[in-house]
């Protein structure tokens, strides 16, 4: 799925009216945003295919 930006050249701010964040990786970044009352979700990320890079490359080709 490739979403081309739908922002018109004038008017709508590039980063949106409100920042809605997904944090993928280091958790304190999520916690700091939560403290600031920013809308944020955290992805409890794990290496794909159990960290096997060859398998990841293969999966990326198939999917």
């Amino acid at each position: 799925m490739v979403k081309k930006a739908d922002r018109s050249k004038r008017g709508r701010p590039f980063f949106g009216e409100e920042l809605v964040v997904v944090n993928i990786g280091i958790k304190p970044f999520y916690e700091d945003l939560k403290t600031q009352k920013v809308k944020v979700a955290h992805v409890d990320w794990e290496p794909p295919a159990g960290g096997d890079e060859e398998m990841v490359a293969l999966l990326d080709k198939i999917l």
Partner: protein
Amino acid sequence: MVTKIVIKKNQYRDSVFLMVINERARSLLGIEEIAVMMGTDNNKDIMGKVGFSGSEIDSATANDIIICIKGKSEEMIKNALAQIEEMLTRKPCPEELEDVYKTLESTIRERPETNFAIISVPGQFAARETRKALKHGLNVLLFSDNVPIEEEIEMKKLATKLDRIVMGPDCGTAIINHVPLAFANAIASGHIGLIAAAGTGLQEVVSLIDRAGQGVSQAIGTGGRDLSDKVGGLSMLKGLEILDEDEEIEIIVLISKPPGPSTMKKILKRVSKSPKRVIINFLGIDPELISSSGVMAARTLEETAFLAVATLKGEPYQPKNFSLSEVDLKRILKEETQRMAPNQKFIRGLYSGGTLCDEAMIILKDSVGEVYSNIPLIPELRLTDLSKGQKHSCIDLGDDYFTRGRPHPMISPETRNRYIMGEAEDPEVAVLLLDIVLGYGAHMDMAGALTKSIKAAKSKAEDRGGYLAVVTSVCGTMGDPQDFSSQVKKLKEVGALVMPSNAQATRFAALVSTRGRNRV
């Protein structure tokens, strides 16, 4: 001595979480060396360097935790392992669970309004996650390092095609829609926008703008390699487009180490067409080269901030070397130098911010001459022994050499405290020059954590019949979680001087080392 290696299969934890475990476990009774890391190739290299190797480590994957411990006895290792196990299995609080997802895809399904991603996964997986985020229509702050430059170029080209921006890789700070992201300061909102390929450069400028009573609504990081000729400033060019169209922004500030020659031309050509007033600080580049393109140029980070503030207010700007009056400056200089031994002449900068370290060397080059460093201005001035300074030197303790497998000096005072004590042993050292960087992500009381070693270093010089000057600056704001004023107070209480900016601290250090002969 006993060594034990334990592999915990399929239990991924992020690097900051594991760093905390390393720090705590290191202080346990009878533990000589420890490494608790994911089994990435980079981490295996680090473990090898501290003496941990073997087939168990070789066969671990990036999804396995490797625990290596060297201790005085089996019993002490067993005790440490039990404590590490307990730390690893800490369960999240129930209120955290509603915001936590397994994948980016499941997050987007549940929260389709998501428009921004912060990505800090290990370098070899960073491009994969970034591509996914871009294809879901998100803008990206990519904190991860160890990302190949070819992948950086590919990600940035994809972002441009999709009308998105990738800030990074190795981007540690940004302010987007007034929100401080990653290692960033709490800044008042306002009409200044920044684009920076220099993390602590951005932090210093936005903090000084805030403390001068103005504000910033967007500060876009690009990652340190963006202005190399290979990448060609793809993120800075996109950032310029964004800030040009942002109705709230009146002044655009660009900060970077010297760009590649063709990229510099490209950027200068682009900014000459901007409808906004533009101020550029390409650290170390002759301002004349920049101002000939019809934009304003600044020499230091402080000048950049104050020029932006004055321009916004429609006031003339006259650069000043010091905020202190001439009388106060002379008085403090006398106080700091009168008890020094004649052989005390060298400056030793111990930095947590790379750009601040760079700026100090650029200022010192013109006032005291050659400055040695691990990130020198010219290759001939590279420090050969990184365990201490030599002559005049500035060490960037946040450089990869010091942070591989260890916490960054903005997070932990450990490395810097060790270096402060080391420099205090050298009778020729006159000044220690330090930065204290505040903001989200940084240590909650760095000034407090350095005071013991500052005091001890000063005592050591006094015991020899001399005096050690400690000159500091605090990069941060009143709104930062650490409380700017109390950080300044703690430093002053142990006899450290606190100057209003890194540029002023550096100039003052030069004055002290030359006993006021050089007034740059």
